[in-house]
């Protein structure tokens, strides 16, 4: 039996609950198992980013809960939640969000510093990751000296550095050209295959959708389609 990494149960996010309620998410159920390469697609405002934020513990649901490896993260608060994110979830953002004053090496190392890993281990892990993403020659380059694709690779390496349970990538190819996007997706697919790393993307990009092994379609805060090869839990109840 496949190990469940993410279990979202009846997730809802309602804005302006007191006046005119707007459902960003409406009763979403979702299971993601280890090693999945999942894309969440849908039109703008369908709730892709909101769902990713809920799974990543960046936002709190109005209803429902999220369990990561059996830990109900929606019940965690403050530093407990932050520490959980640090040790279990990797984030890749649309606009890379690297720290501009740090080099590629330092950007990756930063997250290991937060984990208080020893220096030797940090350096070993950073070199290993830079090699993996093919940027060992850019080790001392700052973000502005790297191309968009290279910056996003560093962002992926940063997300991978603490050896998380899974990586959430919010529109990771949105700012990339086709060659860079393909390279990035190749790299992610390789990591997924070789290291069994779980990836969850929110995307509009057909290239990402084409490479995903599972595609979840969101519309108006609800899952309307799920092409999961494994378990599909799909709630469209009104």
């Amino acid at each position, binding site marked *: 039996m496949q190990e469940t990494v993410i279990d979202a149960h009846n997730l809802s996010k309602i804005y302006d609950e007191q006046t005119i309620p707007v459902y960003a998410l409406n009763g979403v159920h979702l299971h993601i198992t280890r090693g999945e390469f999942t894309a969440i697609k849908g039109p703008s405002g369908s709730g892709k980013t909101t769902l990713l934020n809920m799974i990543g513990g960046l936002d709190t649901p109005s209803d429902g809960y999220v369990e990561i490896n059996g830990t109900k993260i929606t019940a965690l608060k403050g530093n407990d939640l932050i520490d959980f994110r*640090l040790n279990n979830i990797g984030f890749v953002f649309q606009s890379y969000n690297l720290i501009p004053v740090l080099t590629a090496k330092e950007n990756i190392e930063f997250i290991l510093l937060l984990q208080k890993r020893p220096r030797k281990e940090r350096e070993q892990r950073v070199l290993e990751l830079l090699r993996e993403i093919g940027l060992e020659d850019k080790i001392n380059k700052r973000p502005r000296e790297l191309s968009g694709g290279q910056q996003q690779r560093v962002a992926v390496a940063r997300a991978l550095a603490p050896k998380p349970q899974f990586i959430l990538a919010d529109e990771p190819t949105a700012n990339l050209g086709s060659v860079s996007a393909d390279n990035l997706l190749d790299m992610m697919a390789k990591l997924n295959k070789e290291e069994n790393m779980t990836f969850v993307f929110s995307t509009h990009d057909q290239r990402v959708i084409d490479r995903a092994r599972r595609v979840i379609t969101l519309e108006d805060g609800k899952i309307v389609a799920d092409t999961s090869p494994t378990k599909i839990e799909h709630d469209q109840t009104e």
Partner: protein
Amino acid sequence: MMAFYNGMIEQRINTAISTELSHIQLHHPEFRKEYEVKYRLPNGRKMLESISKDSTVKATAGRIVLKGMVASASGSSGITINGVMPTEEQLLTNLKKKIIKGNYFNSEKTNEIIISEKIRKKLKLDLKKKTILTFQDKEGNLASSAFRIISIYKTINGPYDEANVFVNIKDIDSLSGIENEFNEIAVLIKSSKLLEQSQNNLKKRFPTTEIKNWKEIAPELGLTVSVGDQMVYIFMGIILLALAFGIVNTMMMAILERTRELGMLLALGMNKLKIFLMILFETFFLILAGCPMGILLALATIAITQKTGIDFGRFSEAYSSFGYDSIIYPSLTLKQFGIMILLVVITALFSALFPARRALKLNPAESLKK
């Protein structure tokens, strides 16, 4: 600002000690109530001799101080007649240095008087002219005598100038009926730090004599010091408040500009304590960058103005009416400087608490959208 006020107050005190009061004065216990001549120090000469041998004493002199009138053909004015010992007085006060016209007392001549520029103008007097001094003698009888003006003095203290004339003690002691006696002994000590010790020494030696230091003789001066201190603290408070607003503004801007970055840090797993400390450290480094520049500028300004002074000549009349010099020489002790720096650092760090709190309240999901 602090150095400016310090300089102003220090100058006022130094002037009061060197021109008007000296550090310590000895009187008959009743003398200062009515300034009556009969309340004198009968063993003044012996006391003076004994005081001058004290190791803490720099200079001392006896005086006869009389309340009286100075008159000219144009009018008269109520004044304090200071009968001074010319040689000893030179060591005690800077009267001689304050003479702007004429010469100091000549030991061979009698009935010489030094008047102030203010009195000269008021009574339309001038050098070599005669003026009449009238006062009560020991028995309460009116005594008067003519004195020739040998010099005009001018201090920075207008009210003092309006109320004081100086004559040789020899010319007035017999007239006042206390020949070879004093009703005031003034003492200048070697250092202000020795004031208490010196005053206690004198009190032990002359238990029946009233012995007061300059703060007790002129409590308004002590008040000036404390009011000046309060003013400094008020100004400091205003400046520190402005600094606090500046820091809050700068750090708030830094947080607003970097909302996305802070959201990213929170998302990646930087805990709230670290975010909080990061904001405080940023503020500290901001001060570290600004403080040395400020310190250097302040030190340079004080060093230069300590030599050149800051000239408020246009307001000299106003300053003079309060006993202040119109040229201010700022001064600041190392201790005060250290306190200032410490206060700046504390205020800045304290001011950073509000922006830091704002940073902690950021929602990572919302911040990442910015």
